Structures are given as C-alpha cells and as structure tokens.
C-alpha cells in the first residue's frame, strides 16, 4: 500500500487523546467556573471529532488486517471507547445536560490513554485470526458484548455520580407526607388538599431533587439498554460456541463472569421494577456492578485462562 497505515494509526490515536484531553478541560472549566451557562455544542464537537478519529482508526485496521477489527484486547478497548463516545453523544443531545461530560470525558480519556500508552506494543499489532475466530458470529457476539459493557459502564458511572451528589452535596429534607416524595415531585397540579402543604416545603429543594431524580432515571434507562444487549451478547456467544465446539456453556471464566454480570444487573432491574426501589439503594447495586463489569471484561483476560485467551496477556 502506498499509505503507511501504522503511521496514520499512530497519528490518529495521538490526536484522539489530545482531543479528549481538551474536551475534558473544557467541561471541567465550564462546569467549575461557567456558572449558569446554557447548553452549547462545543463539548459535542470535541466528542464528535474523537469519535471520527476512532472510527478512522478502526476502519484502517479493518483494511489492513482483512478481518473485522475486534480480535484482540487492543481492538476491543478501542471499540469500547468508540461505543462509549457514541452513547454519550446520544445522551447529551437528547437530554441537553452538560454535567455528565464532567464524568465521562475523563473516564474515556483514561481508557484511551491506557489503551494507547500502557498496553505493550506487541498486543497492539493486528494479528491474523486463529481458526476458531473465523466466523461471522465474531461480528455479532463481540460487538454486542462491547456495546453492552459501554452502556452498563455509563449507567453505573451515572449512578455513582448520583450517590456522590446525594450524599455529599445536596442535603434533602423529606417531609413525612402521606404521599411519597417521588410522586410529589412528579405530580402536576392536583386537587387534593395535602398537595398544597407539601408544595411549599419542596419548593426550595425542588431543582436539586429534580436533577437527582433525572440522574437516577437516566442511569436506570442506560443500564436497561445495557442489560438488553448483554442478554443478546451472552446468547449469541452460547450459540457460537455450540456451532464451534458443540458445547453452548462450558463455565469458562469469561462466560461465567458474563453470567455473573447478567445476574447482578438482573438483581438491579428487579429491585427497581418489582421491589419499587429508587434512589440510592439501586445506585449502590449499580456501583457494585461496575466492579463486576470490569472484572468480566479485563480481569478475566489478564488473570485467567480459558477459551477467551486468544492473543491476550496470559499472566
């Protein structure tokens, strides 16, 4: 090829890092010192250009190696960053909140930094696929799993932000009204007499409570999407394994940890849907879920053995 692909890839990864760094600085300055500034699209341009860099990088790797760029740890980390960026851009556009950028831009920055600078260079090379990975299921299974990790991680970060804010920054006082506080915040003008009484009490804390409730709800929805993808990912992995080795479940560490992640978030969803929990209790489950997702994604590869140890670090 006339074009030197490794050089371009290097340039792209460096520029992606730089753009994310600038975006992080922008968000921190904006939220820290910007005061009550209105929503603007500057932050999104930063995210958008980082997304373009990563897309180009993935396409180049695809062209270079001839197979879908998701065969080793490096490529899956890049893809995870890509999914996180895409998901975050969607959330920011639809909710028009700047606050979340404060959390997610350093997180994605750290991820990209770890991927490009901390991983040994041997792991960054695109290697040809081993026979077991030469299947169309690779595209389906790994894509959906990484997308689910992205959604779950994002949802859990938001839940952690909720916990931090609700414990340390926003002091909420709840009146022992016969109506639950959540209903009171939600309810529009009502004609029951009690409403007048509680309305006055909540006026002061209303904006903060509304924001907290918004965070809570956003984390719930994001984790909901992530759980859906996780289910699809696990099932497609099982079907692929059955087609390749005749065994849809072999209690491989990676499979087992994906199952554990699934169980954890099933607990989370059931506690919300059936148990009616809202607020900090599910957020605690979600913050535990972050650890589970990380162990499932990275911990198993770095520490364990098994079917998922292709080209990964075998410690």
């Amino acid at each position, binding site marked *: 090829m006339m074009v030197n692909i490794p050089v371009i890839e290097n340039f792209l990864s460096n520029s992606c890092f730089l753009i994310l760094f600038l975006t992080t600085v922008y968000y921190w300055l904006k939220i820290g010192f910007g005061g009550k500034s209105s929503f603007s699209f500057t932050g999104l341009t930063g995210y958008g250009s980082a997304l373009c860099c990563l897309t180009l990088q993935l396409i180049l790797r695809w062209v270079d190696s001839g197979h879908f760029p998701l065969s080793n740890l490096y490529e899956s980390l890049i893809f995870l960053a890509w999914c996180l960026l895409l998901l975050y851009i969607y959330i920011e556009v639809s909710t028009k909140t700047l606050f979340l950028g404060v959390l997610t831009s350093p997180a994605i920055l750290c991820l990209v930094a770890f991927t490009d600078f901390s991983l040994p260079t041997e792991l960054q090379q695109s290697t040809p696929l081993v026979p077991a990975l030469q299947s169309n299921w690779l595209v389906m299974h790994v894509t959906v799993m990484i997308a689910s990790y992205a959604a779950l991680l994002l949802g859990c970060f938001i839940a952690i932000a909720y916990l931090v804010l609700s414990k340390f920054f926003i002091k909420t006082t709840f009146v022992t009204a016969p109506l639950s506080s959540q209903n009171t915040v939600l309810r529009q003008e009502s*004609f029951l007499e009690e409403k007048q009484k509680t309305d006055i009490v909540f006026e002061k804390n209303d904006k903060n409570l509304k924001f907290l409730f918004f965070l809570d709800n956003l984390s719930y929805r994001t984790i909901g999407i992530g759980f859906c993808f996780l289910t699809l990912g696990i099932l497609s992995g099982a079907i692929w394994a059955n087609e390749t080795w005749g065994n849809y479940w072999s209690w491989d560490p990676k499979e087992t940890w994906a*199952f554990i992640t699934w169980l954890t978030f099933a607990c989370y969803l059931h506690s919300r849907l059936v148990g009616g929990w809202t607020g900090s209790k599910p957020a605690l489950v979600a913050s535990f879920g972050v650890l589970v997702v990380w162990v499932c994604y990275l911990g198993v590869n770095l520490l364990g053995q098994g079917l998922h140890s292709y080209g990964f670090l075998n410690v």
Partner: protein
Amino acid sequence: MQHCVRASAGATAHHTVGTYRCRLAPPAGPCQRTALPLAHTKLPAAHRRRCRVDCRSTQGPAAAPTLSDSDSEPSSTSGWRPPRPPPPPPQGPSPLRQLYKRTLKQLSNLKLALAELAVIAALSAVGTVIKQGETYEFYMENYPEEGRKVLGFLTGRIVVALQLDHIYTAEYFLLLLALLGASLTACTITNQWPAVKVARRWRFKGEQASLARLEVASRVPDARLVDVGRVLAAKNYQVFMKDGQLYGFKGLAGKLGPIGVHASMLLCMAGFVTGALGGFTGSVMIPQGSETVVASALRSASPLAWNPGGASAVIRCDDFRIDYREDGSVRQFYSDLTVLDVDGREQSTKTVSVNQPLRFGGVTAYQTDWSMSALKVRVAGSFVAPEDTAFQLPMAALNGGDSKLYATFLPAEDPALAPPGTAPRGVSILARDLQTVTFYDSKGEFAGVRRLGSGKPIEVEGMTIVAQEVLAATGLELKADPGVPLVYAGFGGLCVTTVVSYLSHSQVWAAQAGSGVIVGGTSNRAKVAFEQELSDMLGEVPEVLQQAPALVDVSGTGSSNGSSSGSNSSSSSSGSKDSKEQVL
C-alpha cells in the same frame, strides 16, 4: 395493577390487611358461608371470586370472634354485622391446596429470588478463582495444609470436600439452579399471569378520588372528554369511552414481555436438563485413511440417554490438511470426512473445519484437535535394507509446553542386537507442525531441518533420509444433544421477549368533571417519559370555552341553568347545590 400496596409505600390507605394497605373500601359484610370477616387477596377480580369461595379471616380461623363478644360489643368490630347462629366448621380449601398456595407464595417472594441470584453469582465466581477439574494432587499442591494456607484456612482437603473443584456440577449448585427455576415458575403463576388478566380486564375510573391517586394526575380546565380521547388516539392509544368516562392504554405487550422472559428461561433450563441427562459425548482421533465407528467413541451422559440414530454410523477420514500462513501460524484445519452407514454405503461427505461441523443422524462432529500419527520417510542405508526403502514410522506426542510436539525414532542398528538396558543408536525426528521436521543424531545433537515434500535428503548416522509426509489424525468431538432445540428455542424467546419487555404499558383514565376533564395515568416502565408524554398530550387538547355563566344568582333558580355548551357539563364553578353533577 395491584390495588393493595405494601405498607411502606405512601399511598392513602383505607384499611390494613396484614402488611398490606388496601385502597379499596373493605368488603361489606362477613363471608356468607363461614361468617368470618373478609380479607382481600392481592387482586381485585380474584378477591371477588374468593369471598364467595375461599374466605379468610383477618386474624385466622382460631381467632374468630365468639358470638357473645360480638353481641355485647357490636360497635368495637370494624363494621360487620354480628354473625349468624353458629357457623359450620370452616371448610376452606384442602390442606394440600393450602400447602401448594403457601409454597407458591414463599417461592415467588422477590427477596428470596434476589438472594438466589446473589448466591449463584457468588458460587460461580468461586469457580473461576479455584481452577476446576484438576487432579487431587494439584489441589494438595496449590492449597497446602501446612505453611501459608490460602486465605488462612483454605486447604486442598476443604476444596475437595466442598466439591469446589467441580462446583458447577456439585449437587448444591444444581439444587440452587433448580430452586431458581421453581421461583421463576411460582412468580409467573402467582404474579405475572394474574396481572396480565387484570390488565386485560380494564375498567373505567369515574371517581375523582381514584383518578387523583394515580401516579400522574391533572385537571384540564375547559376541555371535553372526547377531545382528550382524540388526542390519545392520535398517540396510538386504544381509547374506550362511556358515560363521561374514558380509558386508554397502549403497549400491552410490555406487560406480557416479562412473562415471556421467565418462560424462555424455563425453556432454556429444560433444554439444559435434557441435554445433561439425554446427551452423548465423546472425542476421537481418526488417522488419515482410517475410519471409526461412532458409537465406540460416544459416552452417555446418564442412564436416561437414548441412542441417536447416527451412533451406528462410521466416519472415515479421507484427508487432513492444515492451511498455514506465511508466518507459520495456522489459518485453518480441514478434514475430509465421509459418513458410512452400517453396511458400508456412503451417506455423506463434507470438508469439516473449525466453524463448520458435520451433522448426521442427530450426532454432530466438530473439528477440535489433531495429532500426528506417522511419518513417511525414504531411507537409504538403513540396517534393514541398504537400498532406498520407504518406511512409515509411528509418532508419539511429547508433553512439553503448550504447543504440540511429536517425535519418532529411526534406529541405525538392529535394536535386538543392542545390549539390554541401553538404547540403540539412531536418529530422532521431531515435528511441531505439518511443514518441517527436525533431525537429531544419537548424541542428541541437532542435525538438520527439512521441509516435508521438498525431497531434499539429509545425512544422519550414515543414512540418507528423505522426509516425505506426516500422516496426521484428525481430532473430532462428537456430540449428540437432544436438548439443543429446546435451548435454542429458549434463547430465541429470550432475545425477543427481553426487547419486548422494554415497551411501556401505559394506561390513561379520564372523566368529565364539570367544564374540565380530570386525567390520570400510570405506566409501568418509562415513568418520566410517560409523564412528559401525558403533559404534552394534555397541552394539545383544545380549549373549549363555556358560555358565559349567568349573572343571575344561581341558588334559587338552578334549573334555568340547564343550557350549556359541550356534552354534559353545566356551569359548575359556583358549585350550585341544585346541580346534579358532582364536582369538586
């Protein structure tokens, strides 16, 4: 929608039944059969049935008030008439049915289910930390008894005794999974299915109090019910209107979704069990050119397994090739397999590779392994014959490292003549892959490398050797799993129903109240989005202004105010007593 909520939620209560606060008025009168006061069950329709058939006292059958008590203090009881002459002994349902119902109730408890999920997750995690399926010596070595014990107490003996070395097939783990299955079933029977039946049997809410109690409720002034209905219908709600009341819903599939999820999981579990009990499995190494009877390689999973049709077939390996890349790594393994029936007739032929298995008669053969079985060489100057002769030397696997290593030995002198206890002189030939072989002389010194099929000879120990070909054996994993169709069906169902469960089941009730409409609604999933959607919709309802209210004082001449615009509203703001419509 459940009308009895747990006591911790802050709904307005009418009366308490056990730990539930019931928002309906308590049922009137005692049970007609047993004269015990009535209790609600969780669902309104079911309770109406039950109070005729299955009455339960609020305090239990032993605590039924006696006749003398109720006669002397009629006012202290909560509003039921004194009982009739001595009631017959409580007949109720049979003890077996009561036990069944109580078990179902215990099993469908959410806390129990969450605990089950947590314990299964924890045990699964343990299985990833402790290496599974190793030998006893492995655990003794890695979890020592003396010295520094792992975690301070975990020794090899404990690991084996608690079955932590094969935790996923341990009885307690399987029992936990079975318990989870039982909980899923119980939940579907007691909660989800009845909830669907209730959801399908919608009812209007006409009372403003009940409308007000909905999660999202609002009053739209100067509006007509029919306009509200029109706006709802435009947003894909199914709307029903009757007598100044309205009910609309959408997304009923969202209520069925969770049942589908549980049902699919149960189907998967059924498939797992079928496969675990009824399957056959085995692996076999077939050298090129040889064949093997499938049944000889299969082992049944349990005595309950039934033979697949393909067990009587014979597999012949015609060829085995490895496709190498330029850098020496493997691109793909290919085996040309032929399936023959008992009489030797060819049934099918296929080139099998790693992601392309061979299926026949309920058995599937997967390419999972390979080995070398023999090395074909031409040797000139051997002790057997001085001229160029072809030999086929059997190869054996050497255990060392992760990659495969096979070796064979070509003696340079007759082994029978060698002194007993010593090895004869000869050439060791090693091979890692099907591309090259390496030669070592009797002293173990490296002699040379030759590419197979190049025809280039090598001189070792006085012989001229040409390495021609390695005869490989293909390693096939044979499986017959009758549970796979069930498992796949369950997986497919799970995929679809998980997505469907995310649909919100939204319901909206409305009633015309004077000049305005009171609207209330609830949704089981996206509550915030529903609130937003409802307020948007109500914003779209056109405002219908009443005729100017009469300036004359209304109280004495109420009937003259009958003229009104719109459907059935009269000027209501003055709250005239003569007005028949109940307004605020």
